């Protein structure tokens, strides 16, 4: 214990005597750890938010697509409803279109399915029929285009030069906040038949969302649908989430790779700092060895110094990481795409801290080896 206390005093003074170098080393470690923790927290928050959106938006466990953008026949939808184990089938159209020069998402749904995509009506009331020249504008879109209930909007499909005019009957908050995707500026929700007519594809929808009855295995349902309609693309809701997560993981991996470079720079910085400390104190190491210090006593001093850098960098990194994650969340939320919650994932925080501590100690291996290899007789001979 006495040797540890002595080593701590050495390290404490060493850090105090070279404040700038010590501060820069700690900051280098902290920045690497902070980037790692920020990304982890942001990633976890984004995944949670994305999962919530997909679960809210998709009123079923199995999704059926055709080979094209909107080529699922309503006959198929009706047949699906008759399958054993199917509770409900929701047909929907989701394509990009235009209002003037503004890109928007055109969502075609049945009146009874509006409750699955609209969380709140700000003004007006929803359409009640399957057809009719009525539209519900998303709040974001309404603000952007200064739309009010009663206004008329001309909506163009993604292809061709035709357009149709609709009366805005309601302004609402649409749950599926993906305005930034495909540079779309917001949602315009139309009755299903109107959306089909706009696209020139009466009797066809983009997708059918199948809700299975309680106790029915969604995987079995997916396999059954694939068997009956071999030309269709059938996905589980979890697979949709999986695809979203896959994309997110790819982005996270790229960012984490960049973070790793930062961490490697921190490791090299720590190695350099401890190596220069050993070089600086070479004579003192020799004199301590002459005075009876064992190799482990010398190793303890420099490992302790690296550990102090690691612990300080780790703690600071955790704080910076949380702050960085909050900034990242604010930026992501400002895009209007996702509103990720700040989830202080304890394993990520602990991992970041342990990584800093471990890398700190690892960084000291080479300098400590050099320090313990010093032969007092050789250093002191140079007098």
């Amino acid at each position, binding site marked *: *214990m*006495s*040797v540890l*206390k*002595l080593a701590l*005093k*050495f390290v404490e*003074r*060493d850090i105090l*005597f070279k404040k700038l170098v010590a501060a820069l080393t700690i900051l280098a470690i902290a920045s690497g750890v902070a980037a790692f923790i920020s990304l982890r927290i942001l990633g976890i928050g984004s995944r949670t938010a994305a999962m919530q959106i997909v679960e809210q938006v998709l009123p079923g466990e199995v999704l059926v697509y055709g080979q094209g953008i909107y080529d699922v026949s309503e006959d198929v939808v009706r047949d699906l409803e008759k399958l054993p184990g199917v509770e409900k089938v929701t047909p929907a159209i989701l394509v990009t279109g235009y209002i003037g020069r503004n890109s928007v998402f055109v969502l075609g749904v049945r009146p009874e399915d509006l409750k699955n995509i609209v969380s709140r009506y700000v003004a007006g009331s929803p359409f009640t029929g399957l057809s009719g020249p009525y539209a519900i504008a998303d709040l974001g879109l309404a603000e952007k285009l200064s739309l009010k209930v009663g206004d008329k909007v001309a909506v163009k499909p993604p292809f061709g030069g035709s357009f149709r005019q609709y009366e805005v009957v309601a302004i609402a908050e649409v749950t599926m906040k993906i305005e930034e995707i495909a540079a779309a500026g917001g949602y315009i929700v139309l009755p299903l038949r109107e959306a089909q007519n706009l696209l020139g594809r009466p009797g066809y929808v983009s997708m059918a969302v199948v809700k299975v009855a309680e106790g029915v295995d969604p995987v079995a349902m997916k396999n059954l649908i694939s068997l009956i309609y071999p030309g269709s693309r059938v996905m589980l809701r979890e697979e949709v989430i999986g695809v979203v997560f896959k994309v997110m993981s790819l982005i996270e991996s790229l960012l984490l790779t960049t973070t790793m470079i930062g961490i490697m720079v921190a490791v090299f910085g720590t190695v350099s700092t401890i190596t220069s400390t050993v070089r600086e*104190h070479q*004579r*003192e190491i*020799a*004199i*301590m*060895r*002459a*005075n*009876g*210090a*064992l*190799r482990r*006593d010398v190793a303890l001093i420099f490992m302790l110094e690296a550990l102090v850098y690691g612990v300080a960098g780790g703690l600071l990194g955790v704080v910076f990481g949380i702050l960085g994650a909050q900034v990242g969340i604010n930026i992501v939320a400002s895009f209007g795409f996702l509103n990720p919650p700040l989830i202080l994932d304890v394993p990520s925080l602990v991992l970041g801290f342990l990584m800093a501590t471990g890398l700190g100690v690892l960084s000291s291996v080479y300098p400590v080896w050099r320090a313990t290899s010093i032969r*007092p*007789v050789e250093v*002191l*001979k140079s*007098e």
Partner: protein
Amino acid sequence: MSEEALVLKDVKKVYRTQTEEVQVLKGINLTIREGELAVIMGPSGSGKSTLLSIAGGLDKPTEGRVVVGGVDITDMSEEELAKIRARKIGFVFQSFNLVRNFTALENVMAPLIFTGLYTWKEAAEIASKMLEVVGLKGHEHKFPGQLSGGQQQRVAIARALAPGPDVVLMDEPTGSLDVDSAVRVLGLVKWLNEALGQTIVIVTHNPELSELATRTFYIRGGLIYEQPPGQILAERIKELKGGAGSRELKSLQLSMLKVKLEALERAASRGVADPGVIEAELKALERRISRLEKLLA
């Protein structure tokens, strides 16, 4: 009859390079008895520092045996030698070589801590007393940079003496000091030798130092020769023997050696060191305690 604090038996040292062999020491036989202040003189390159390194367990002889305080250290490993150095050998160098990150007190405490025998409190008490002995009371918490050269060398002397070593080896202890500081440091060295009975070996090329020695040696051509003591030395010894405070210092030294004895006995009972080495150390320590008790009686 005094016991032997340091014995070198037919010590040879050969340095080999790719092209040649240089025999620096050609069979040194040297016995330093407890309580002696030996000065080894010689020109640059005569092998003085090599001899000191071998005597202190910092280097190994090519041939011959080295015995410190009754323990043969010739065939010990580096780590065993480090333990022996901590308990039995003190070093004082020309450039003071204090640890900049430690205060004066901590510099003196360090070798005590490295022995593994003392608690922090015990080490601090001994170090504090040693700093008082070398006249640095009130400077305990100063860093080396805040002390003059002479004061730093006195801290180095206190550090060498603190663990109650069998022998203190000094390499040109006044080489980096101005004349006044050198005189003060040498006076202190002699006084400590006389008052504490501390065995001291000094290697130097400065002939003035031989005036303080109880024995003087010359090293030349890899061999060592002894010179009989001169007149000036005898007079100096008389002056210093009658010095004030000598009895108090002996009592202080006795109390510190007793602390070391207890610590060694603790180490022996815990089995932290080789029993043979501990036994030899205990015997050497008991002899020194008994000698001091006789002087105080």
